[in-house]
């Protein structure tokens, strides 16, 4: 019996070993480093310091600032921006004519397909002082603004919406197609207007897609690094320094690998908190 079990498990061993080696291994190693004072330079031997890195984070104004900015960035760009805009686009495109649909879809998806760094440079060129946005504002005789300097977190949030709305649009397009036409039609016969149908029929029916989409968007947005790095490097000062950028700065510029890794684990915690909230939302029945 036992021999048969082992025999059955045998083909799985290579996969298991690979997973342990390349997936579990680094995670465990990361978690271990977070409890040491490992530095990139300036230190002969690293030693185990317990929770010192975590205590330090919670007393570090720069860390708390980064947590706050990460929340602002996530709520603005993921929850409000990508999610709502994606749904709106999907809903509007259902009613649009085919050429309009193809064109809009193509443009939106192009933004999504672009590599992160390229998107970052494009939006840097768009927002910078001599950039496109100010040229347009100047043409319309509106006052220009140095966007990356005065409101950097808004600029990078907008950039993330621009880049990420396509994903939500795709998810919602698929979800909306699943709603049977009869239900919408009967609601229409009962005299429900567009907004009522949206609120009482469409949204409840695509609730699961909303939950999944929110979760994926949020986790993706939490770890956005390249886009912000290219546009502002977290600056000016630390006005757009979200957690991933703070983590990078501590680990690789201030050479404190241990502290940086501890921040990475805390970022993981923020992500799992969001996940828990979404899971609860998903579970409630209408």
């Amino acid at each position, binding site marked *: 019996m036992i021999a048969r079990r082992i025999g059955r498990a045998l083909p799985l061993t290579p996969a298991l070993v690979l997973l342990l080696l390349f*997936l579990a291994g*680094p*995670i465990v190693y*990361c978690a271990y480093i977070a409890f040491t004072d490992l*530095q*990139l*330079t*300036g*230190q*002969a031997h690293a030693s185990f310091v317990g929770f010192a890195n975590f205590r*330090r984070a919670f007393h570090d104004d720069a860390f708390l600032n980064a947590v706050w900015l990460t929340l602002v960035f996530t709520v603005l760009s993921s929850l409000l921006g990508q999610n709502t805009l994606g749904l709106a686009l999907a809903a509007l495109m259902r009613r649009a004519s085919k050429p309009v649909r193809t064109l809009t879809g193509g443009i939106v998806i192009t933004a999504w397909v672009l590599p992160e760094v390229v998107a970052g440079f494009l939006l840097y060129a768009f927002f910078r*002082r001599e950039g496109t946005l100010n040229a347009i504002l100047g043409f319309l005789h509106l006052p220009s603004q*140095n966007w*990356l*300097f005065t409101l950097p977190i808004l600029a990078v949030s907008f950039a993330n919406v621009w880049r990420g709305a396509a994903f939500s649009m795709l998810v919602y397009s698929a979800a909306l197609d699943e709603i049977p036409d009869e239900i919408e039609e009967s609601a229409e016969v009962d005299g429900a207007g567009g907004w009522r149908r949206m609120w009482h029929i469409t949204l409840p029916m695509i609730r699961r897609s909303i939950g999944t989409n929110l*979760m994926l968007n949020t*986790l993706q947005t*939490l*770890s956005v*690094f390249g886009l912000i790095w290219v546009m502002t*490097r977290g*600056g*000016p*000062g630390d*006005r757009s320094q979200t957690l991933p950028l703070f983590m*990078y700065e501590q680990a*690789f*510029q*201030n*050479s404190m690998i241990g502290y940086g*890794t501890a921040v*990475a684990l805390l*970022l*993981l915690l923020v*992500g*799992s908190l969001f*996940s*828990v909230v979404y*899971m609860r939302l998903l579970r409630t029945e209408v």
Partner: protein
Amino acid sequence: MRPTAVSILALALVTSAASLTACSSGSGSSPDTVKVSFKESMDNTVKVTDNYLADIKKQFEKEYPGKKVELVPIKASDADYYTKLEQMLRSPRTAPDLVYEDTFLINSDITSGYLKPLDSYLAKWQDWGQFIDTAKSAARGEDGKTYGVPDGTDTRGLWFDKRVFEKAGLPADWQPKSWDDVLAAARTIKQKVPGVTPLNVYTGKPAGETATMQGFEMLLYGTNDGAGDPLYDKSSKKWIAGSQGFKDALSFVETVYKDKLGPDVSDALDPNYRNTVWGELMPQGKLGINLDGSWLPQSWGKNSGHEWPDWSKDLGLAYMPTQHGQAPGKVSMSGGWTWSVPAKAGNPDLAFDFIKTMQTKANAEKWYIANSGIAVRKDVAGDPSYASAQPGIKFFTDLVASTHYRPAYPAYPKVSTAIQEAMEGVTTGDASVEKAASTYDSTLKDVTDDQVVTQ
């Protein structure tokens, strides 16, 4: 699904961390190849280092038949270069045989055990006797051993544009006696020559060590009597917090940016601003006064991409005055780079042979002149062909007598970052001078393990 989401995030984090730490290219080392890592200019048109090393490589391969040199340029900003280098030095598979080390970081890397002491090689190398004493100590660790051969040093001062000064009605032989004189000249330029940035003082984290050394320390080291070090107290071996000089230096930076005497804040905080300064603003006559280093002319030579044959006619040089003009009257800071052999290098002997080829008298002189460095070899410094090779060399070489060296102890890089943060705070106006200084004091305690003395 909950654990799945978490593990997806974990995987994303881990893979990104792994790709960040493991991005250097490791090639198996062959006993006949010496791998040389150096910092390549961020400005594609500046090829001074590349050309020089290509020349040395040719000489070396001729001198040592059968041996090969592999140049491994790292094109990055200063901070990214150090990070990349340290990652390469951690493993024998990625460690080059010879690296170009900034003296500000060298003690930190020595403490980490990344570098190999060179004493046994230096003892057998006659030319080492030609190096001036301060240069010999530039790469000496706290253990008394020497870990690098310096390829020159530098000094710092005020570059001013005579074309701008003429329009502003300022003298062509300008020499300020105090900080107020510098600010007054900047105010005059602002008033009389629109469209020109009156005064550039590097600032903020994006500029890195440039902000600390060319900007802040050129001010700070002029706030006392010039005898003691205002950053580090050598007698108690502790870093200095709460000094008035620190606040005064921050106030100067604040004034420059608050009164719009400096560049636009967003430009000043652009990591590539340095290249804009010497590549565009200075040649185009759009910068009045620039507090900067002796090496600037290297970007204006023939085939440099920013050719500016008339720079010595268009620009004037003045030393940076002390705060109130108190003795010794002028301030300069010196640093420099060294060639070091990593502890995990595969071919350390060959690497030192390469240093020897680089540092023959003729090659050293060629390098000092090409990169506008200040000679650290006595035989070159005494050679008239060196002193007359470039205008400005005499001015900057004379400053060596009154220059200061950074307290480049292992904690220095982190102290430097703390200084940049304080500067950035007063530059953007996010923090008052008081607030920025007190933040610096508390950060200082953190990064030096409480080795702090309050003044």
